[in-house]
């Protein structure tokens, strides 16, 4: 039976917006051909049942040849579940800023989560959540991390193709600046003095924002060894206020350890008090 020889793919989600797994469904041209080469064994957003006719659950039985994991770990149950998923996965690849850096929800790591809970929920005691949002690699070994909020479709296909071919994904670690050069975009910082995080941001998007006249805001997270000191002084030079510098680093990849040297960023519990509003 040919369905038995196709490697199996599982897609898992933790705290996230589902955008990274949706990227797979956005591969319109490749989706059906891909299913000829891979057996989609577990993908809740797409299928009610696994091929094996297991009931739909949050954690299948596997084993799976390739697991794509989206989202960050924010609950005690998540911790259990990611260990289980690691056990039943031969290869485990994280997709997106949530899974590789804690995501935008890691802003809680800088704040008082009790106060957050009370700001959003009238009965915060029903809400079981950890005080932190952590990347998958904090909990289990990860075979490859794909960056981006959201990930890039082309890079996702490269990861899957590389897996099928048994090789390492060909995804380089240079900065957005390189992609601007390749794309032929004039540097917006040099030409217009627009503050841009390109020099310290991991490539992958194809240097989108500068092509649209916007400074990079770092959605692909840091390059391996960002020179943050000179980046921060350049941003100031280009007119960014202290507060805006802090905010731009403290967004979708806020918990990335590479950003720690940004003045004021690493300070825990130093953020503004949460909304004071009528409870609900």
């Amino acid at each position, binding site marked *: 039976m040919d369905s038995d020889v196709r490697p199996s793919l599982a897609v898992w989600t933790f705290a996230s917006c589902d955008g990274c797994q*949706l990227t797979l469904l956005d591969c319109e041209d490749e989706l059906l051909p891909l299913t000829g080469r891979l057996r*989609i064994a577990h993908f809740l*957003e797409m299928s009610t049942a696994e091929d094996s006719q297991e009931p*739909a659950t949050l954690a299948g039985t596997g084993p799976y040849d390739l697991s794509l994991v989206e989202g960050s770990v924010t609950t*005690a149950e998540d911790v259990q579940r990611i260990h289980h998923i690691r056990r039943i996965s031969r290869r485990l690849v994280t997709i997106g800023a949530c899974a590789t850096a804690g995501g935008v929800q890691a802003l809680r790591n800088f704040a008082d989560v009790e106060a957050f*809970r009370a700001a959003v929920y009238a009965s915060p005691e029903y809400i079981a959540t950890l005080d932190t949002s952590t990347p998958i690699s904090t909990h289990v070994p990860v075979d490859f991390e794909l960056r981006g909020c959201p990930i890039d479709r082309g890079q996702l296909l490269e990861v899957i193709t590389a897996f099928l071919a048994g090789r390492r994904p060909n995804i380089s670690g240079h900065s957005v600046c390189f992609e601007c050069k390749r794309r032929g975009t004039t540097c917006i910082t040099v030409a217009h003095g627009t503050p841009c995080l390109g020099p310290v941001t991991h490539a992958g998007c194809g240097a989108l*924002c500068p092509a649209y006249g916007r400074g990079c*805001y770092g959605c692909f997270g840091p390059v391996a060894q960002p020179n943050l000191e000179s980046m921060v002084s350049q941003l100031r030079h280009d007119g960014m206020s202290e507060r805006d510098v802090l905010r731009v680093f403290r967004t979708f990849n806020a918990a990335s350890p590479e950003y720690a040297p940004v003045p004021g960023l690493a300070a825990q519990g130093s953020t503004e008090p949460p909304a004071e509003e009528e409870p609900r």
Partner: protein
Amino acid sequence: MSHRGSRVLRLDALARVEGEAGLHLTVHDGTVAEARLRIYEPPRFFEAFLVGRGHGEPPDITSRICGICPVAYQMTACQAVERACGVTVGGPLAELRRLLYYGEWIESQSLHIHLLHAPDFFGHPSAVELARDQRGAVERGLRIKQAGNAIMEQLGGRAIHPINVRIGGFYRAPAPAELVPLAERLRRAHDDALETVRWVSGFDFPDAAYDGPLLAMRDPGRYAIDSGTPAVMAAGAGSNGATSVGALPVEEFEHHVVERQVPHSTALVSELDGHHYLTGSLARYAISGQWLHPSALEAAREAGLGDPATGAVCRNPFRSIIVRAVEVAHAVAEALRIIDAYEPPSRPYVEVPPRSATGCAATEAPRGLLYHRYAMDADGTLTLARIVPPTAQNQAAIEDDLRRQVQSRLDGPGEPADDEELTALCERAVRNHDPCISCSAHFLDLTVERG
């Protein structure tokens, strides 16, 4: 478990919906005692961490609430901030915004129709199996979806979390020539969309009716998406549509729509003046159907939805797939109209200087009405954020629908339903409403109910 009497049915993970949810159903002596949609998405606390951010940030940050309707968040956030600042964005910028929103509509609605919902009507677990006997239809759906994504990619920079949106407009406005390739793709998508309406109208639809109140934006003369005033069609209304629609000014939204927390869900449950209600395709069609683009209106009539111009209303949640298909046809036709008439704006955005104020806005996300409210200081620092997403609003209505559908199956003739059949029925009932669980914004971890 016996086939009659009391039983508890749990479904841990709902598939083919956006985000994470489960179901819990309790039946005592043949009567549905409880039907719960359990939303256990972990909380992400957006409203809390928006406080202290700059007034330009909500479009980028709130888009990350949902990867399937980021533009809905961006458009609503922009309007709410602009309203606080006393700025109105009109002319070609407003048309471009609408074009981007139509892109999302086309993408998201065709995703739901072809990949998430249609497999139910053929008894398939997914679109991959559906493609084995309906390959043409699935490929057509993917083509339409691609046309929607192409708009988002061209105008927004990318299909998920577009980068080209800012308060006041865009970072960069396209030159007319850049939109030409989109028009070619959309012309094909228009034929495809009409074909999809015909395809889904031939499905087998179980009898069902949601008879509670319906909530959608209303802007007389246009099928309201990013404009107008929230409006309510009363419970049970349908034959005299227009006369039973009452306005609910967006500034008064939170007086009428009240969210409360329930132990079984991380999403807050909304009530409209104390009742469950439905927002989304059925509500929009009921409230604005008469203003659909003529080609979509014609397709709706042919598909047997009745003539919305004479007040016909569709209240069968199973048929929402037809309404969605009609809405795709409308969005494609409207996107083409905008592209054909496009004159670039003189500047890609208008300045939105901050001031100490509060602003709110609502628009129609593909899944229903989405409401944002922000308060800011004089320097634009946000002091409050409030977001009411569509799925949280629909949660109580979905539970009501579940209860009713299961009860009518239990009371109906024929073999007693076994658990498997009831589970399938419940899953379908939920999927009819296209819940976007990740949208339900304020979320948590499951508190298990042991029945």
